[in-house]
């Protein structure tokens, strides 16, 4: 099994190299004088020259690239102009907020989409099948930021069920002791149910917004995959062997149908990580997305580059995990290679 993991890690290396090259090009492709951009509009000529020397912008491109990679390896992503803090620190501090949101969104989406897809497939042309198909067609058309706003309007303004969309916790609650920095987990570890509830209610709307977006492709794939499996030869054999309806639908059809759904998760994460930014803006969520947006508005470029790099590496890591997981549940893969 470990051979497989190593193999997949090695396979990911060219992608990592590609990502680093692209982000490097993005930093150096700025129109005008990159040094001036990184130093900021308020910098003196001397400060600009210092930046230029530090980033080695006088040197040739390959030399610059080497410097860039060296800085990356040391965890140096530059300094944010607005906060004066190293970008890397900010990103590390804010990453758990974004991750908690994204992961909760995926979990919510999966919990609804998968059963929905299974039911739609086992009862073709029923109302649930039509509902599933309508949902998947409409779901891919929804702009995430708009859905988020609508949810805020309905559930906060009109119904008053959701708390004010001001971030991870309301102003009166302090965060739980930081072990994982996932508020849900940390508050449970500290047995602080009040904080847990506060964090959960704040998480609810943004996570649902993200989840709605992921719902459509997951439900669509589950339904399609399940339909295919239910009409397959081996399910026919299972039926002919008199196995119970439960065994046929779940142990035989469903487990096999899940395989392509796992693969779809990879694509779903691409959309989710992108939509994350939009959701963070709507809900004032203190994650890396809003960090990047604030930086953009202030013409502060180092955080934006750091953000793009982090998201890309995160995406690669998630895909790697999904890939490894898939290999674990499908015994045919190792055999073919």
């Amino acid at each position, binding site marked *: 099994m470990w051979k497989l993991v190593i193999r997949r890690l090695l396979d990911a290396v060219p992608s990592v190299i590609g990502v680093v090259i692209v982000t490097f090009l993005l930093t150096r492709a700025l129109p005008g004088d990159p040094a001036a951009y990184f130093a900021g509009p308020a910098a003196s000529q001397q400060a600009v020259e210092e930046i230029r020397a530090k980033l080695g912008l006088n040197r040739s491109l390959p030399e610059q690239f080497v410097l860039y990679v060296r800085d990356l390896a040391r965890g140096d992503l530059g300094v944010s102009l607005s906060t004066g803090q190293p970008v890397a620190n900010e990103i590390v501090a804010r990453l758990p907020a974004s991750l908690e949101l994204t992961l909760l969104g995926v979990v919510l989406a999966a919990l609804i989409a998968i059963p929905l897809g299974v039911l739609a497939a086992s009862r073709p042309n029923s109302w649930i099948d039509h509902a599933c198909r309508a949902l998947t067609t409409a779901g891919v058309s929804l702009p995430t930021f708009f859905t988020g706003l609508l949810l805020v309007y309905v559930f906060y303004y009109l119904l008053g069920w959701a708390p004010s969309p001001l971030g991870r916790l309301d102003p009166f609650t302090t965060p739980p002791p930081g072990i994982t920095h996932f508020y849900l987990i940390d508050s449970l570890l500290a047995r602080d149910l009040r904080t847990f509830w506060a964090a959960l209610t704040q998480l609810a709307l943004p996570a649902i917004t993200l989840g709605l977006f992921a719902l459509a492709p997951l439900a669509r794939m589950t339904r399609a995959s399940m339909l295919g499996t239910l009409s397959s030869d081996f399910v*026919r*054999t299972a039926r002919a*062997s008199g*196995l119970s309806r439960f065994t046929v639908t779940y*142990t035989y059809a469903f487990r*096999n149908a899940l395989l392509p759904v796992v693969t779809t998760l990879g694509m779903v994460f691409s959309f989710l990580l992108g939509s994350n930014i939009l959701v963070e803006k709507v809900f004032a969520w203190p994650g890396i997305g809003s960090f990047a947006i604030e930086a953009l508005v202030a013409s502060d470029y180092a955080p934006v580059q750091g953000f793009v790099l982090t998201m890309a590496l995160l995406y690669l890591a998630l895909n790697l995990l999904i890939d490894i997981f898939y290999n674990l*549940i499908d*015994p045919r893969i190792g*055999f073919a290679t």
Partner: protein
Amino acid sequence: MEGAAPVLEVENLGIEFRTRSGVVHAVENASFSVEKGETVGIVGESGSGKSVLSYAILGILDAAGRVTSGRAVFGGLDMVRASADELDAVRGRELSMIFQNPRSALNPIRRIGQQLEDVLARHTTTLHADLRQRAIECLAQVHIPDPERRYAAYPFELSGGMCQRVMIALALACNPALLIADEPTTGLDVTMQAAVMDLIGELSQSRHMATILITHDLGLAAEYCGRIIVMHAGHIVESAPAADLFRAPRHPYTRKLVLASPHGRVRIDELESVPGGLPDLRRADLPPCRFSARCERRSEVCERLPLPHHARATGSNVWCHHPL
């Protein structure tokens, strides 16, 4: 044996399929019976309805398929009107089926031993701790070498012939009274074919199990079946003891089939082909005899009057206006 009730009795079975381009009258008025311990072959071209017939008996028809008339009585239960629970109690236990393309007919991500255990656990009272041993015994009974090790194998690790043996083990795990084998040798090479057919024959004999062999290969049926039923375009046209069928076919279609099948004394250049093709079964105006369009002996009555059934004491039956 004499006077004992047949294991399976099918009467006037009619099956149709709803498709986008119309209703397909896949099977019409099919009647036959299978006695205990008998091996019956159902022979016909692709599309003649032979597989569909067995799917209907087992209750595993497609969602688009419907039984429109008739009965299929197995062990006192009318299979086409039985409830899901009644069917589940019988399928895999008293009445089993094996399919062609054995590798795709087995769950690709589940170990074969596990699949055997699923069937055993469902239909027998074997204790959980003994399931594994029983499964290995089943594998041994179909002559799978090294069954202990093979128990943990996945279907893709086994050859086509081995997969077919696993299917047979699955089907026979609970000692059914009737086994339906749908094209069990298609896709296997010739030596494998013989091995699989011999295995089925041997197991049927030792367990006094009745077998229905569905095939398009008349020669195969002739070799392994005591009685043969010939189907054409959803109709049963002839049913007779194998030797009689070959020696003196009574239906024009059967005769063409016999002349087209290589066997024994026939030379390759003596083989004939069966002319024409199957009629479009979606037509609402199909003639009572669906072979008439391709038949040299056809006359006006063939297109108008319903088919008569000519039976003989020898057990030979034919449905034709102008039998040979």
